[in-house]
């Protein structure tokens, strides 16, 4: 009996030794930018730009402009380059390759937003002409929409292009006119060349991509949403009500299809008959396997079914649904004329009926420096 107990003890010990190692969950700090940087370094090369976009916006909203600047500067050379065929793009185009194998640079509205935010930082850094360059690039990126009615139709990008031009003593009236045409309203304020405080606002949650169609081959969007449609700004005695200039869901969904959509549709078209063969051929094969005289044809049919199923399963028609998922739904802008020194701003976000949303209200302080524009980004989220 003793021996039995000893053996049992040894067995338990051995079992204990073989127990899986329990690892502590990684400790995450509350510093979202630092955590984001870890995600960037751990991300696959093809996804790094996506993560940089996301973390750059987190940094920008947290007022960590140096980090946001660096992250966007790491993205834009690739986004702005001519991206020619390489092994990865060929793979993404092939029947057996997934579109998400390509290096992510984002859909045009996402690329435009990367330039938009970089422009904001250039302006903040006292380089309004480089900010304007970013707005021009962002608008141009939207220029190859299939439906020309929606090409280069960001209201705010044209408005800011003209605003900077006016501030640099040029003629921004053409751009203001373009912005008003895109906005379908004349409510956009005239430019104040002497304005020195630029308030950028963003509301809500932007669009998200998903794959539509039988195989997820159609790039589609879940529209973003925002309870906020406008904001009321108060600085000292000055108050201004600002409506949303742009809607990113509108920008994402009005481009009229991509060339890649045709490629994915072709892949889907190829998968359909293969799926049909994979379903029907084995069933017919099994039926034919019964009678002696048709048994010879059964095996090839079953084999063909299996092969068709394997090919269809290996074929990748899914659209790339990687999304810059912390973009806002609406963009807005206001400019003030203020003397140098400390100031405070009160922001009240308003819903579609113009009612304030008190939970989102906030008060901020800022300094106006002489000889340079002060640029702020205020988000409701």
């Amino acid at each position: 009996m003793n021996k039995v107990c000893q053996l049992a003890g040894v067995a338990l010990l051995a079992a204990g030794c073989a127990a899986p190692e329990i690892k502590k969950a990684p400790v995450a700090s509350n510093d979202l930018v630092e955590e984001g940087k870890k995600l960037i370094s751990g991300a696959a090369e093809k996804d790094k730009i996506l993560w940089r976009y996301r973390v750059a916006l987190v940094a920008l909203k947290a007022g960590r402009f140096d980090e946001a600047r660096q992250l966007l500067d790491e993205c834009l050379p690739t986004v702005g380059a001519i991206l020619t065929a390489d092994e990865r793009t060929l793979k993404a185009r092939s029947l057996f390759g997934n579109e998400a194998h390509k290096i992510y640079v984002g859909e045009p509205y996402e690329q435009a937003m990367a330039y938009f935010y970089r422009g904001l930082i250039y302006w903040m850094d006292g380089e309004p002409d480089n900010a304007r360059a970013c707005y021009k690039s962002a608008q141009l990126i939207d220029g190859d929409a299939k439906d020309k009615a929606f090409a280069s139709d960001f209201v705010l990008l044209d408005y800011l292009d003209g605003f900077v031009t006016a501030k640099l003593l040029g003629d921004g009236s053409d751009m203001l006119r373009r912005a008003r045409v895109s906005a379908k309203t004349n409510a956009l304020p005239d430019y104040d060349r002497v304005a020195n405080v630029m308030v950028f606002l963003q509301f809500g949650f932007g669009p998200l991509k998903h794959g539509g169609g039988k195989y997820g081959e159609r790039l589609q969007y879940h529209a973003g949403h925002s309870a906020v449609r406008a904001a009321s700004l108060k600085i000292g005695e000055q108050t201004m009500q600002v409506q949303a200039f742009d809607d990113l869901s509108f920008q994402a969904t009005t481009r009229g299809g991509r060339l890649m959509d045709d490629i994915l549709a072709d892949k889907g078209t190829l998968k359909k008959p293969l799926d049909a063969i994979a379903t029907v051929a084995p069933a017919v094969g099994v039926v034919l396997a019964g009678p002696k005289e048709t048994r010879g044809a059964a095996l090839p049919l079953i084999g063909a079914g299996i092969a068709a199923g394997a090919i269809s399963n290996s074929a990748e028609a899914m659209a790339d649904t990687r999304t810059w998922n912390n973009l806002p739904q609406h963009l807005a802008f206001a400019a003030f004329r203020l003397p140098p020194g400390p100031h405070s701003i009160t922001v009240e976000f308003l819903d579609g009926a113009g009612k304030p949303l008190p939970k989102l209200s906030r008060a901020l302080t800022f300094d106006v420096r002489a000889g340079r524009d002060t640029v702020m980004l205020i988000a409701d989220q």
Partner: protein
Amino acid sequence: MTRANYLTVIAAALLALFVAGCGTTGLNPQGANVTEMKADERGFVAGTGIESQDLVAVADKMARSILATPQIANAQGKPSIVLEPIVNETRFPINKEIFLTRIRVTLSTKAGGKVIFLARDRMDALEKERDLKQTGKVTGGTPNAPVEFKGADFILTGKLQSISTRSNKGSSDYVLYTFQLLDPRTSAILWEDFAEIKKQGQSDAVYR
């Protein structure tokens, strides 16, 4: 064909599919070694924007043109030039000082001391040093000495403008680089020259 042969064929087909599925998915999986290139060479990472080879070509052309200008070539003494940041009206954010820096350095090395550049972009440091000298905190100064910072004989500046188009056929960017030498006393344009570069390209279908 016997049953065994059928099975062999099917097995081979499945194996081939499996191997195809295991194919590499990497972009340039072996990577690209660091390649040292000349600044005037076109790299393999290219866009339609302003690149180093454009900077070198434009700056060299402007420096040669300035040196040939009569006001510089036949100047009595050494004219002083101040660089004024260029105006960027293109769609490409750039370091605005880099063109003028490249032109200045080319002129300094090729002009054989014919011109002097004034470091107006360093005025803060220069004034601080002058004040230290004038207050006797460091050697080399005289109290209440008259201003010795030189005024400019010429101002060198420029402007970058572009026409950009983008369609489903690709992207095209034309950039016009203009530079001017101004007389700050009369506002006369003493010299002006330009360079122009047009580039176009189209990304792979997966990005369109």
